Each structure stands twice: as structure tokens, then as C-alpha cells.
């Protein structure tokens, strides 16, 4: 199977790889997937007092499409408000990266990671968790 140029670009030059300090109250961490399934994503956001995501980092264990999906997600998250981030749909990632049908689960996982990170941030700040994870392969 051939990868799209955008997947190859994100895989070769992943954006925002790294780790934020998860003990900080304004950092939300989402860890989704499982090693047995062949993909695990960890996505982190740092949120300022205006509910704007100022930084986003990821690390992913998975195929090229999973790495690209999470790399793209961090790019999109930076500068968005938390509410705007919640609106990101996995199909936008599919479209942007031209993922084939067998790789759609990678985009679903990225969306789940975003939502899990936001929930973690909300819970840390005394808010109710908002959304249910979408992932089920």
C-alpha cells in the first residue's frame, strides 16, 4: 500500500513530538489505544487562562498513518480554544491525509486522543468530563 505524500511528510518530519509536564494543572493528557492492537497514542495539551491551547505534544506507537494522524492533530490544536478543539472530527484528518479505509481507525484514535486530553484537563480543573470516546475497532 502506498502512503500519501502528507502521511510521508508527517512521518518523516513529525511535528510537536515530546512530553509536557502532566503534573501541571493546565496540562491535559490523553493516552488511547493498546499495545496489543498495534497502536497507542499519547497526546498532551497545555491550556492558558483564556481556554486557548498554547502547546500540544504527542508520542505514538503505531503505523505511519497513526503517527501522521497524531502529528497533524497537534498542529491543528495549537492556537485553538478547547471548544474549537472538541469540534475536530476524525473525517477531517482522513481527508487531509488521504487515508485509505483500512487506516480510518488511526484518525478515530487521534480524535479520541484529543477528547481524552481535553477531558483530563477538565477533570483536573474541577469540570465534568464532556464526551464519550469514539474508539471501538
Amino acid at each position: 500500500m502506498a502512503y500519501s505524500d502528507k502521511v510521508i511528510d508527517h512521518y518523516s518530519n513529525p511535528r510537536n513530538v515530546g512530553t509536557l509536564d502532566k503534573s501541571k494543572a493546565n496540562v491535559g493528557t490523553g493516552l488511547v489505544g493498546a499495545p496489543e492492537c498495534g497502536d497507542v497514542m499519547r497526546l498532551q495539551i497545555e491550556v492558558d487562562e483564556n481556554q486557548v491551547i498554547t502547546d500540544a505534544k504527542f508520542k505514538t506507537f503505531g503505523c505511519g498513518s497513526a503517527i501522521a494522524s497524531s502529528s497533524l492533530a497537534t498542529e491543528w490544536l495549537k492556537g485553538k480554544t478547547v471548544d474549537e478543539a472538541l469540534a475536530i472530527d476524525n473525517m477531517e484528518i482522513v481527508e487531509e491525509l488521504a487515508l485509505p479505509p483500512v487506516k480510518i481507525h488511526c484518525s478515530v484514535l487521534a480524535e479520541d486522543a484529543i477528547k481524552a486530553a481535553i477531558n483530563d484537563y477538565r477533570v483536573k480543573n474541577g469540570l465534568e468530563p464532556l464526551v464519550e470516546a469514539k474508539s471501538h475497532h
Partner: protein
Amino acid sequence: MLKFPIYLDNNATTPMDPRVLEAMLPYFTNHFGNAASRNHPFGWAAEEAVDYAREQIAALINCNPKELIFTSGATESDNLAIKGVFEMYASKGNHIITATTEHKAVLDTCKHIEKLGGQVTYLQVNSEGLINLEELEAAITDKTILISIMYGNNEVGVIQPIKEIGRIAKKHGVLFFTDGTQAVGKIPVDVEADGIDLMAFSGHKMYGPKGVGALYVRRKNPRVKVTAQMDGGGHERGMRSGTLNVPGIVGLGKAAEICRTDMESDTARIKAMRDRLENELLQIEESYLNGSKEHRLPHVSNISFKYVEGEGLMMGVKDIAVSSGSACTSASLEPSYVLKALGLNDDLAHSSLRFGLSRFTTEEEVDFAISHVKEAVAKLRELSPLWEMFKEGIDLNTVEWTEH
């Protein structure tokens, strides 16, 4: 000068040896006759070429040239052997013994046999990938007609105790079929010494052409017959109808001859390179060899690089062509059933790469592969949350993962 990508997937298929191509070419053009045409020189030339190829192949596996049935490849040979024996020996019994690590061409054929009312026992393998001979013998009943155990495994290269299996089969009067696809041409295979009654193999795994293979069917002690699975002109002693693929058969013959004459020197060189590749890669932290180190084909190495996913890794080693036990592209997301049968956890199975060397592999290519894989593993571990957790001393088994 290295030419990219470097081909290290020789268990999938081998490049054809130029000497094989040269031998085949006249049989596409000048000598195009049908080997079954008995009435003119065109047919005679074709038949003569086929007979010569039979001798070349017979010499490689130590059989009589008449004991070879030409087919389209190993999958067809597997089907013909198992279905053909099941039908031919129906009055004797309906039980077949095989193993969980067999090729799909054997396993799916066995599933088909079960639908037809046959009984199949699937032997487990140990962590080295080897079957247990006592379990094999214990599984034999008075209804058992066939033992089907492969010679060398395609994914991990593990060589089963063929001679011992042959002895057990003989002792109980059960036929022994082996899928020899990965072994024939690579290591000495002797149907007499090994006690093999039927054996499948293929041209394109031994530097010959695709689309041609053979089934060895013993003619003496005992005389074995299989029911044809295609109806037609009754070629190949009535066991496989269809006009013979003369150029392909000539190629298979030539490939067999080269394998026989060059095996000793080829194998020594290939094994030395394989061992070097393997030893270097196993120096990477948290990397594991899959399958028996000792009972193994000389050109194969299957290694898991923990905390790195195989398909992602293959993308990172794009300058070499290898395959992975990860099945991220398949709908089921299930990793290799062979690796799982060896007892690997899904995460280790997902993290595996299979390297297959050939007589055309060079030292420079191996050098490159070593550094290329080392770099890619290091790069992907930098990206891997699992690696980070491992390095922080977190036991991944205690983490609550979100189910998919």
C-alpha cells in the same frame, strides 16, 4: 554501488537467477511445442525438455524423476496433496494431523477438509516453533491417513524434525506430506532419508520462475496416489491435468540444478551474512529473536523490536524491502498467527520484522541494512510513548489501556 531499495524479502519470493532465464527463453519461442504432442518434433523437443527438468529436480531431492507432478506452484501442490489424499484414501480413514504454524495453503485446505466431514488435529508448537513428537504420535488414530507438517516455516524459518516425523508416520502406516517450499533448494532435502511420501515446492522461492511448482508423490514403499483435483487430459499420470508449462518447468529444472551444485557455497555465505545481521540487530536493546535459533533455515531471521510497531518500522526502513508480523493493514488488526502460536504477545508480534537473504545478497547490503534498521528503531522509539514509559520503569501490563 548499492541499489535501493535493497531486497531482503526472499521468503516472499526470490529474484530469478539469470542462468534460469537463459535456459527458459528458447521454450517461449523456438521450442514452443506442447509436451503432450507425440506426433512431431515440436512436441518431442518439449517433452525432452520436461524430462530433463524432472531429472534435474529429482537429483536435488533424491527421488525418481517419475515421482514428480508439475503444478502451478506450492499452493496448488498443497491442495492436491491434502485433498487428493483425503479423497483417495477415504476408505481407510478421514483424519489428518497438521500444525498451527503451517502456511495458509495447508491450513485453509484443512479447513475445507473439515467442511467435507474430515477430522483435523492442529498440533501446537513450543516457544521455539517446534512441534512435540510425542503429541504427534499420540494424535494418530486408526482413522489417520495423513500427517502434514511443513519442512521450514516461511515466517520464522524454523525447521521441524522431519526425519523423526517420517519415522513416526512410517511406523503407524500413515502418509507424510511436507510443504517444502522454503526448504527445497536452501538446505539438503532428501525424500528417502527423510521418509517423506509427498512434498510440495515452488519455483519462485528457489531463484526460478513464478507460476510453476511440483508435488513429489512417492511411487514405492508405499506407492502413493492422489485423486486429481482438476479434470482434463490426464496429464502427469492422471494426477494433474493441463498442458505442461514447458518454459516454467525448464526454469524450475535449471533452478534446481543450480541450487544443488551451489548449495554448499551459497548456504555458507548466506548463513554467515544472516548471522552477522542478526547478531548486530540483537544488540539493540529490547530486541528478540523469534523462533528456534538452532533449528532454522540459514537465510531467515525474524526479530521483534519491542515498543516499535512493525508497519511503522517498515516505513522507516524504506530503503530495504522486508516484511512484518504486524497486520495493521488487515481489517482484523490481528498480528501474525505464526508468531502468536510461538507464544508471543500481540505487542511483540506487532513489532517484528522478517529478513530473508538470498544468493544475491551482498555484504554491503547487509551492512547498510544493519545501520538502517538501527537508526529507524532509535527514531521510532523517540516517538513511542511505550518506550518512554518503559524507560521510566512503568510496567506496561499494569496500565489500563482503552479497549478497541
